Each structure stands twice: as structure tokens, then as C-alpha cells.
């Protein structure tokens, strides 16, 4: 999630603000990535990281690192795409009007970021949702190894297959609680009073 946010937010802002050769292609890839079936992402990452794959020498398959790679591929387009949409929704005249009010370049950037903030938070929530609810890719590249790459979503699948519905439901409740806590934490930033200026 942190990696996706660190890459996706700047990418989204760049795509919204800058005009460069190939931008259309990058936007198309981002939008396509937003609708990628996670299991297909898992398959692609699996093939990349498998022993005979081009990145097999890294030895990441069936490790938490492989799961992180898959989840970045899944959530990065979501965060970048929604951040871009939020930044494009900000009136292009605003930057000029901020300068007219006396903002220097740093103050102008901060104010513009503040205007984009609700959209960026929505992008982070959507990215987090894509990751936490994901099963297929985590299974494929992580292997669902007990104590190593088993996560809540893959554990729920396993326990359901075993017929341990009570445990599966309890894990589901834990997953929902975790999602609720993270969402509530992020939403605090959205509704907290904003300090202007500076």
C-alpha cells in the first residue's frame, strides 16, 4: 500500500498536470490496469518470478515480497487513476488565482495539493480496498504457506474449503474490522479542519 501510494500519487498528479509525448498511452495503461482481474495479475507475476521466468533469479516466488509485487501492480493503477481524476477536477484557473493572491510556487503547490486531498484519500481507500479484498493473486504468488504467506483473505478460502465455517467467519470479521479501522483513520484526514495558508 505504501509503495503504491508513493508511486501512484505522484504519477496521478503528473498525468493530470503535465502534457508529454506518450501521456495518452500511459493514461490508457493506467485505466486498463484499474480493471485488471487480480488473478490475471497474479498469473503474470507468477510467470515473471517463477524459476524459468525472467525474474526467477530473485527467488521471490512464494514469499511475502512476491505478494507485495502483485498487490502493487493491482493497486497502483487504482491510486494513480483516481488521483489523476481528482487533480483534473481542480479548476485550471486556480493556480493563476493563487499566484494573484500572492502565493509563491511552494505555497501554490501546497494549496493545490490541499484541493486534491479528498480525491487522493478516496484513491487511497480504493487502493486499500483492492488489496485487502484480494485472494487470487495472493494465492498464486504467495502459495498460502502457513506462517509465511498466509493472509486473512487466503486463510478464509482455506478454512471454507476445510468446512471450518465458524473460523472462516471469524477471520472474515477480523478482515472487516481491519478494513473499517483503516478507512475510519483515513477518513479523519478528510473531515478534519484544514489549516489554510503557509
Amino acid at each position, binding site marked *: 500500500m505504501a509503495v503504491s501510494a508513493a508511486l501512484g500519487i505522484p504519477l496521478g498528479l503528473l498525468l493530470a498536470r503535465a502534457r508529454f509525448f506518450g501521456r495518452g498511452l500511459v493514461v490508457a495503461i493506467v485505466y486498463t490496469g484499474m480493471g485488471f482481474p487480480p488473478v490475471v495479475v497474479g498469473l503474470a507475476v507468477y510467470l515473471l518470478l517463477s524459476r524459468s521466468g525472467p525474474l526467477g533469479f530473485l527467488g521471490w516466488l512464494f514469499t511475502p515480497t512476491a505478494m507485495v509485487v502483485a498487490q502493487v501492480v493491482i493497486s497502483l493503477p487504482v491510486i494513480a487513476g483516481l488521483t489523476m481524476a481528482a487533480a483534473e477536477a481542480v*479548476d485550471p*484557473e*486556480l493556480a*493563476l*488565482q493563487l*499566484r*494573484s*493572491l*500572492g*502565493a*509563491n510556487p511552494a*505555497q501554490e503547490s501546497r*494549496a493545490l495539493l*490541499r*484541493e486534491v486531498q*479528498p480525491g487522493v484519500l478516496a484513491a487511497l481507500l480504493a487502493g486499500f480496498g483492492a488489496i485487502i479484498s484480494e485472494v487470487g493473486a495472493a494465492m498464486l504468488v504467495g502459495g498460502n504457506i502457513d506462517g509465511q504467506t498466509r493472509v486473512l483473505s487466503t486463510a478464509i478460502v482455506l478454512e471454507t474449503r476445510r468446512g471450518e465455517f465458524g473460523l472462516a467467519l471469524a477471520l472474515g470479521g477480523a478482515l472487516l474490522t481491519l478494513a473499517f479501522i483503516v478507512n475510519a483513520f483515513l477518513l479523519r484526514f478528510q473531515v478534519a479542519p*484544514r489549516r*489554510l*495558508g*503557509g
Partner: protein
Amino acid sequence: MTDPLFRLRGLRKSYGRGWSLRIDSLDVHRDQILAIVGPTGSGKSTLLRLLHLLEAPDEGTIEFDGRPVTYPVPVEVLRRITMVFQRPVLLRGTVLDNVRYGPLLRGRRDPEPARRALESLAMSHLAHARAFPLSGGESQRVAVARALVLASPVLLLDEPTAHLDPAHILVIERIIRSLRESRGTTTIIVTHHLLQARRLADRVALLLEGRLIEEAETARFFDHPDDPRASAFLRGDLVW
């Protein structure tokens, strides 16, 4: 007469299809109210943006306060000029947040001047209202308050009363006059209302198709314009 505050020479600005603005010579003097009139698309807003020094002309020179302008203009110089845009964009937050924004950028944290600016525009009751659901007229008044609170020596107004009712138009005109009297603010106002230009301005400039056709003291502009095209414009004849 003292040196002009703005001295424009050989100014040309294009946005891709021919010249949007071609002004051979224009001086704007201190402590004056200059009204810029002309039909839609005549270059009035372009001229105002160039006078704001936020955009560079394609050709020609602008002198501001006796010095040639070089771009990008330092923020300290830009802060001497404040503009109210034709379509103001407000920041998220409250009306008071918006009016305080400019002073906060300058390290002035006292909210009182912002409150007084809102009060002068009869908007105190909206100080803590969210800025986004405001009507066009209210947004325009917030934008005027946002500019007033900065007390800049130069005020550029791009149709600041376009969405206002007559009572609020008079309030803003009164404020513009009092700023000139009390602070010596130089004001350049773009307006479609010839009567407003006549009521308010010391001098009036007419732009047609990006060219400065006539610039004169207000009474002379309206009563004895030199250029026949200015006479035709004042009569309301559409001769272009």
C-alpha cells in the same frame, strides 16, 4: 504629472490564432481608476492579465513603477498587484478561510482584517459558510473581499459586478472609490457597463479586436471621443 505606474509599449500577445492584443502605447497613472471597455473578445481580460505581470507579452515591454518588467516576476512585486478574476475560483473551506488565505501567505494571522473586508461587503453572516455552494454573485463578492483584505496598491478587477444586483454593484463601486481616496489605490476595471465606467473611472480605454482605439479622461471619452469607432461603439452601433 508623475511617472506612470504602468507604461506599455509595442505590446503584443497571441494565444495561437493571430494577435489577441496589440497595444502600441498605454500609460496607467497612479491613484487613478481606469475603466477598460469593449465588446466580448476585444482583449480586455488579456490586457488585465498582462498588467498583472503573471503572463509575459510575446512582444513589447511593460514598465511597472519605473522599472522594466522581466519574467518571471518576483513574488514581492506580484504581491503589489491583486486581481479579481471574471470567474473566481474559491478554495475549499469557509468563506472566512478564503478571505484569510492571502494574508496568511504573507504571515498575517490576525483574522480581523478579513472579517472587516467581509463586513464591508455585507457578507459577515456568511463568514463560516462553506465556500462551495455559494451563488455566482456571492462567490464574486468573496473574491472581492479576498482582494480587498490584501490592501495592495494596485487592484485589477475583471468584471467584478457581472453577477451582482444593483445594490451590491453600488457597494462595490463605493468601495473602489473609497480605496482610491483613503489608500491611493490604482484600480483598473474591465466592465461591460458603460454607465459604470462613467460613474467610476477617471479615464476610460476602449479596446476593439485587441487594439486600443481610444483612451481619454472620462468626460472627454464619453462626450467627445476622437476616434469615430469609439463614437460608434458608444452609440451601440455594431460596425465590426
